[in-house]
């Protein structure tokens, strides 16, 4: 991945990256691949501007 990005990292760094960011992938696993087709990132601004009443 890092090579594709054009940034050189050795095996030790690759292992450390994997250990460090790996749990975030695990935490997000239940969401990944489940989102509906029509959902765009801009839906966030719509949710943000939605008036929420008690």
């Amino acid at each position, binding site marked *: 991945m890092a090579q594709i990005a054009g940034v050189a990292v050795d095996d030790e*760094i690759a292992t450390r*990256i994997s250990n*460090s960011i790996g749990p975030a992938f695990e935490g997000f696993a239940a969401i990944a691949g489940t989102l509906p087709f029509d959902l765009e990132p801009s839906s966030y601004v719509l949710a943000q501007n939605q008036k929420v009443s008690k």
Partner: protein
Amino acid sequence: MSTEPALMTLTEVARAIAMKQVSSHEVTRALLHRIAQWQPHLNAFMSIESEAALKAAEAADAELAKGEVRGPLHGVPLAHKDMYYDAGKVSTCGSLIRRDFVATTTSTALQRLKDAGQIRLGTLHLAEFAYGPTGHNAHYGPVRNPWNVAHITGGSSSGSGSAVAARLTYAALGSDTGGSIRMPAHFCGATGLKTTWSRVSRAGAMPLSQSLDTVGPLARTAEDCALLLALMAGPDPEDSTASHEPLSDYVAATKGSLKGLKIGVPASFYVDDLDGEVARVLDETIAVLKREGADIVKVELPDQRQLQAASQLVLAAEAAAFHKRWMIERPQDYGPQVLMRLQNGLAVPAITYLEAMRWRGPALAAHNAATAGVDAVIAPASPVPAPTIEESDVGGGPNAPALLQRLTLFTRPVNFLGLPSLTVPSGFTKSGLPVGMQLIGRSFDEATLLTIGAAFQRVTDYHDRLPKLPS
């Protein structure tokens, strides 16, 4: 109210200068005196501009004598996190790479405070490129906690938290991408306002993660935070993401009562595995809010660990994209901790990043639905009080990585949702370290948080307590 100029709140000193009860010059001199005493112990300032500040104070006093008032901060000396560009001035961003970077523009947030009359005292220390939760900095040394200099301040707005708590500036801009305002507020005993994402323009503020970065103040009181937010918030032609949502009267909001307000206490996550003293302070804070008239109810929030994970993925990818050129050309000029964090972003595929971004809308909608019955949610800013500088360093032993993860556990989900959150000093540990609680609000409803924070501060004195100068 203190009559000692350096110990006044921002609101008090601004009023005292305007009413000519104290001059800007006197106030600036008093702060510079305290800075000279404390800076060797705290390392909170990146630069101290004594001569220029005193000269600007004299000019402010001369203007006032002629009846010329620039605005609500006329003649008030302030220092801010050294990542807010000020045209013609160096902005190091806490880094070696930008050690000599001279800004060519002035950040909108800072310009609005300058237009209101603030004068520049210097700049405040921060984590390198605002990418660190503790206050360590490989190039300029750690910033120290004024309540115990062996302990961290929290980051990345480390200098802001330390300087406000030690009364070296009346308030300071911080920035919050993963907890960088709320953690220093919690660890140092300051009041810190993480604003709704897009409430305050980010133009001219060093970027870390465009989807998560927010600009906000640290100050002594909720009232002071309200004053600064009122000056900074609103649309900006220089930042197309700055929201056009209507503003509230934030200062007036601080006069409100808790009666009729509903505050939610999470049923899980934010109350799990807390340090015993943080748990005690949470209970005590809830009791005060209840006594003052708030209705306390339990809330079931959606899975916060998923939000935390998504927040980490977005931050890692966006930060690596900003820094990619320097990661290739100047990797040796980063501190090892920060370079490691930036390298994490290389492992996030574009599809995963975009999935996280696409999920933000439904995630916020789910949060809104879960909290529809309450005005705010209360939670600790962090599960623990300030650890020591040594134990939270990356080389600080086998437990350090887990400790670092734990520090930001309760702040990152809020960044992913872009919600406002006010951290208020709420108690102290037996060993004398501050503990802060965060009040998490609805999007663009900073006003309600300021109402709750100010009402809490009217009946408690945690925000008034003063750390002692180390011997």
